[in-house]
Each structure stands twice: as structure tokens, then as C-alpha cells.
């Protein structure tokens, strides 16, 4: 961890307090206003888009460059298994196993 500890603690506190506020505010709003379902859907879609972008960048990149083939290959196999409704544990273990196997075979 290269960042100073105080900064990490500050980030941690912001994330924890803000998340609690998000959990609470929806319940408080529910009693008061009618929220357009479209807006709620949009928030949900935004979260999925960000998570998909996170999957793509963590699978394919390392720093500012390409991660190598082994990791995205493992994630691809996991994606196919998840799409075919394989159990969660199988999906996650397959990703690690395929990536580890490729590295044993000399594919980075």
C-alpha cells in the first residue's frame, strides 16, 4: 500500500458513511415522494454498466497496458459458465483454474 494510511482511513470513512446514507435515504424517501420507476431503473443500469467496465478493465489490463492472455481467458470461461447458469462456486473456481493452468503451460 503506497498511499498514506490517513488518506486510506479517510476514503474508508467516506465510503462507509456514504453507503449507509444511500441505504437509509431510499427508505426515508419512500414515505414522502413518488419516485419515477424510470429513474430507479436508470440508477440500476448505471451500476451494471460500471461493474461491466470494471470486469473488462480488471480482466484485460494491468496498469496502463495489456494483462496478458491467461487472465482474460479464465474470465471468459467464467462468463460462459455464468451465462449457462452454472453454480456460483463453479464459475469463480473455473476462472482461477483456467488462468493458473495456462500459466503452468507457459502462457502469461
Amino acid at each position: 500500500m503506497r498511499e498514506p494510511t490517513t488518506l486510506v482511513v479517510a476514503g474508508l470513512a467516506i465510503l462507509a458513511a456514504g453507503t449507509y446514507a444511500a441505504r437509509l435515504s431510499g427508505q426515508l424517501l419512500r414515505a414522502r415522494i413518488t419516485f419515477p420507476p424510470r429513474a430507479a431503473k436508470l440508477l440500476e443500469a448505471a451500476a451494471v454498466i460500471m461493474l461491466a467496465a470494471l470486469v473488462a478493465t480488471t480482466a484485460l489490463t494491468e496498469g496502463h497496458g495489456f494483462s496478458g492472455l491467461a487472465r482474460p481467458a479464465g474470465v471468459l470461461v467464467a462468463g460462459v459458465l455464468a451465462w449457462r447458469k452454472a453454480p456460483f462456486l463453479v464459475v469463480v473456481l473455473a476462472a482461477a483454474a483456467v488462468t493458473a493452468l495456462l500459466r503452468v503451460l507457459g502462457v502469461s
Partner: protein
Amino acid sequence: MRSIWRTLDRRGLADIGLTCLAVFFIGLSYGAIAVASGFPLWVPAVLSVLVLAGASEFLFIGIVAAGGSPIAAALAGLLVNSRHLPYGLALPPGVTGRRWGRLLGTHVMNDESVVFALAQPELPAKRAAYWACGLGVLACWPGGAVLGALIGSVVHDTNAFGLDAMFPAVILALIVKDLRDARTRRAALVGAAIALATTPFLPAGLPVLLALAAVVVTL
């Protein structure tokens, strides 16, 4: 607590138990990845108890480990956790508890507890499912994270075991049900492309935020 066991049937409790077990295993990989990225044990431990929202914690760890600012990482995590606001809107009043109980009931709101609550027909069952799953996750997520961090600090080259592929696989498995919707899938692919295209030029964390522009695809 005892009313939870009376209100829910065996099948419902088994589903909640399996979900909590899965959460425990994600917690293991989360703790191992966090220490492998150079964090001391207390960071994933404290995050898992106080934030209690997996995807945002992975994101926080990932951005800081890549050299990004912890403040920017926290804001990115908050963006991911903003979905808890519509969750709160979706839950009928009373599910999360009343008065002091609601302080804890609010904290245990997560993807799993909300899904189980919404699946139940009546308020008492909704409340029981919500609390059973919420408290289960509150025990399993930090428990897995701490154990994973302990294992990870013994195992040095986690890349050799393919652990670095687990994080994207976990997130992918969690969002795959949303990706079955064609419109969401299109937007997600556009967002992923934006993030990948900008990664070589931008500081860590920003590409994922820029991906939000793809939300116009869903309009």
C-alpha cells in the same frame, strides 16, 4: 431471531444459507486479493464490516492498489453503492425494522437480502427473509475476508493460482442476470469499450467512471 425460524420454510432457509456460503467464498478471495495487492489485514477487515457491500470494496481496493487516490476510490465505490437508494424505495416500510432495530436493519441492506425480501409474499415473511439473509451476510462476508487475508498473507504468489482472475469473474457472475436484458447488455458493452479504450491514457478509476456515459444507450 426465533421468529425468523418459525416464519420461513426449510427451502427458503436453505437458499439463504447457500447464498451466505457463496458470500463467504467471495470474501475469501476478496481478503486474499487485498493482502496480495499490498494492503494490511485491517483494511479489508474494517471495510467488510463498515461498508458491507462487496463490489464497492473490490473497486476501492483495486483503484488504490493501482495507485489511484483513496478519496477518488471512495467516490467510485459510492457510485456503485448508489443502487441501495432504489433498494430502500423498493422495500415496504417495516421490513428493515423499527426505531433502534432499523439502525442495524439499514446496514444489512444488500443485493442478496433485498432479493430474498422481495421474493416473499407477505410482510412478516419479507421481514424474516431480509433479516436472516442480512445477518448471515454480516457474519460471512467479514469472516471470509479476514480468513482470506490470513491465507493470502501466507501464500505469496497469488497470481500463480489464478486468483487475479477471480475478481472479474465474481463481478461478472453477479451482473450476468442483468446482462440478459438486451438493452442493458448493449450499454454494458459500450461502457466496457469506453473504459478499455481510455485505460492507457487516464489515471486509475477514471475509465470506469467514464463508462457511465454509456447510460445514454439505455434511454
